[in-house]
């Protein structure tokens, strides 16, 4: 197996590594408060305001009581902070007869998201690896079909998939749902991994072949360790998509596996009575909390990936 020294040497030879692994670049004069600095930061702050405004409204609203919401404007901070909406959204909002709020679906969501994310990434990364390094006749045709498949609306595929799962006897089970998520994550993820692996220096691959490493050996010992950033990106995409999924979660499982989004839908879309905006907003933030957390944590990994790349620069 080739060592790290080899890795560093070959990295120079890569023409255009489509990788995330290098530090910030670009022209950079370093004068304080130049027009450019003002333009750069000004634009960034304006953009940041646009992105943060809805979050601000969500948080502020979730902390208000209903009377205040009805009277006040949506941007004003709460006069009297209450955490009741949060408690209600988490533990007592009703879904039909089950009045235990979002907490009911939380572990189901975890149970669905973890295996679905892991398996879909594993399969897609192997696909991408096979497509970029071990191309065989016809592989491109399958890949083209896959890419076109990315454009098919999910809803159209419901019926065929119900039939397929019924025939293989996995309809209504957790594994059936994991398969569905793996299928629909495959096109984009495979594309990502394929492009990434194609951007890695080819000499690495050749050297490993000369050393006698096979398909799986190279994948596990070279490709995976070198590809942390793209795995992070893939994880972000999948965790977000799967955690937020509602349609597949209800169509392909039964109530005991219903994910959190089902409760969110029920809390938000129940039409009778007064709309409790504060509970809706709290439920929304709570449901989004896990993907958000993944972002904050993986943001660091991301930086690490970039820093690691800087060594060989």
């Amino acid at each position, binding site marked *: 197996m080739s060592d790290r020294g080899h890795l560093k040497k070959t990295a120079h030879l890569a023409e255009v590594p489509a990788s995330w692994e290098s530090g910030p670049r670009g022209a950079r004069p370093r004068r304080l408060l130049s027009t450019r600095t003002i333009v750069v930061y000004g634009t960034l702050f304006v953009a940041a305001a646009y992105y943060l405004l809805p979050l601000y409204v969500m948080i502020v609203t979730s902390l208000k009581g209903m009377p205040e919401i009805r009277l006040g404007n949506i941007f004003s901070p709460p006069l009297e902070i209450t955490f009741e909406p949060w408690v209600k959204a988490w533990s007592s909002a*009703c879904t*039909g007869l089950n009045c235990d709020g979002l907490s009911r679906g939380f572990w189901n969501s975890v149970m669905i998201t973890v295996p679905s994310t892991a398996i879909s990434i594993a399969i897609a990364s192997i696909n991408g690896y096979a497509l970029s390094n071990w191309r065989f006749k016809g592989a491109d045709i399958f890949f083209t079909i896959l890419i076109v498949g990315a454009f098919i609306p999910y809803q159209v595929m419901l019926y065929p998939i119900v039939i397929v799962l019924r025939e293989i006897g996995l309809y*209504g089970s957790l594994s059936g749902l994991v398969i569905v998520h793996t299928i629909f994550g495959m096109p984009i993820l495979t594309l990502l991994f394929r492009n990434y692996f194609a951007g890695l220096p080819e000499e690495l691959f050749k050297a490993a072949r000369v050393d006698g490493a096979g398909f799986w050996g190279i994948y596990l010992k070279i490709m995976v360790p070198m590809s942390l950033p793209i795995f992070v990106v893939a994880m972000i995409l999948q965790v977000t998509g799967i955690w937020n999924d509602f349609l597949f979660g209800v169509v*392909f499982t*039964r109530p005991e596996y219903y994910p959190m989004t089902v409760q969110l839908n029920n809390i938000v879309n129940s039409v*009778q009575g007064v709309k409790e905006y504060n509970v809706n907003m709290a439920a929304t933030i709570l449901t989004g909390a896990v993907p958000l957390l993944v972002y904050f944590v993986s943001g660091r990994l991301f930086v690490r990936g970039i820093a690691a790349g800087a060594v060989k620069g």
Partner: protein
Amino acid sequence: MKFRSAIAALAATVALPVAASHATDLEVTHWWTSGGEAAAVAELAKAFDATGNKWVDGAIAGAGGTARPIMVSRITGGDPMGATQFNHGRQAEELVQEGLMRDLTDVAERGKWKEIIRPASLLDSCTIDGKIYCAPVNIHSWQWLWLSNAAFEKAGVAVPKNWDEFVAAAPALEQAGIVPLAVGGQPWQASNAFDVLMLALAGKDTFLQVFQERNAEVAAGPEMAKVFKAADDARRMSKGTNVQDWNQATNMVITGKAGGQIMGDWAQGEFQLAGLKAGEDYSCLPGLGVTEVIATGGDAFYFPLLEDEEKSKAQEALAETLVDPKVQVAFNLKKGSVPVRGDVDLAAANDCMKKGLDILAKGNVVPWTDQLLSADSQKQKEDLFSEFFANPSMTAEDTQKRFVEIIAAAD
């Protein structure tokens, strides 16, 4: 499917009177998720649990778009629930024809459903090829104009007694800064408001000729042109509603921001929740105060065919529970709807509800469009009228032409 019909035959021969001795879990799916609805479902669950079985709740909010695809997928995917809600009418027709649903005829005969369920049209829409496939649980009627007394007072006009007076009062309301007629943005609201106008203004005969017999000539005729004129008025009066959900529109009436709303009897729950009193704070005009006929739509439970014998027995127990007189009263009082049996006493009903019961008792009823038209035709109608209500440049004449096309092609 052969295999399924074999099971069906088998299930029919071994079906025994209910004597569930030990608890069987039965998953029941429905889209009743809001406060009042959930309270009503709780009554059903309580009564069912009392038979020694266990109600496993599978609630999914959002009727047509969200819940139904899930229910249908579950049934066709071969992992059916124990029982499921549908609007009774034609939504489950094909599942029955496909042999996926359970025949309840023996349960119905034992319970004498044919004699006690009224109006008879309710059971008719559960009947396919002479067999009964669903248990109706409630009657909802659409034909109501809800009026805010405060809004009319503010505008300085008397609370209207019928549709024409309402139209005449509209300018005064507008001057006072009040939207005369609240119509929410969801497509079904516009479409059903039109159907209500039609039944009230063109009468029962025309209504049935168009929707039951699909008589395109009548649909294109002068009687209907009048209805489209009225719809044009309604469109003008609804300008400025700017809400989506029906209950947000109802809320405009409750707060006096709107003069009135055409909505089903479930709107009453909103007025009650807000602490308003029928007659004093708000008024209701069944049949828009013109034609006192109400349509009988509602909800029903269907039972997928199951292989498990225990569960099949539990299904029977549930079907019997649903039409039980006590359960009917408890459920419908919470739900704000009318029981499906004529032999129960609803002393607790309020003024508006009593008006509805009176009309029912007189037999002035028609089946509702859910029962008369396929979901497909209903959807086309929704598309047409939601476009009409949102687009002031669409003329009543053009809309009528498109309406005739839908009726001519309806199935």
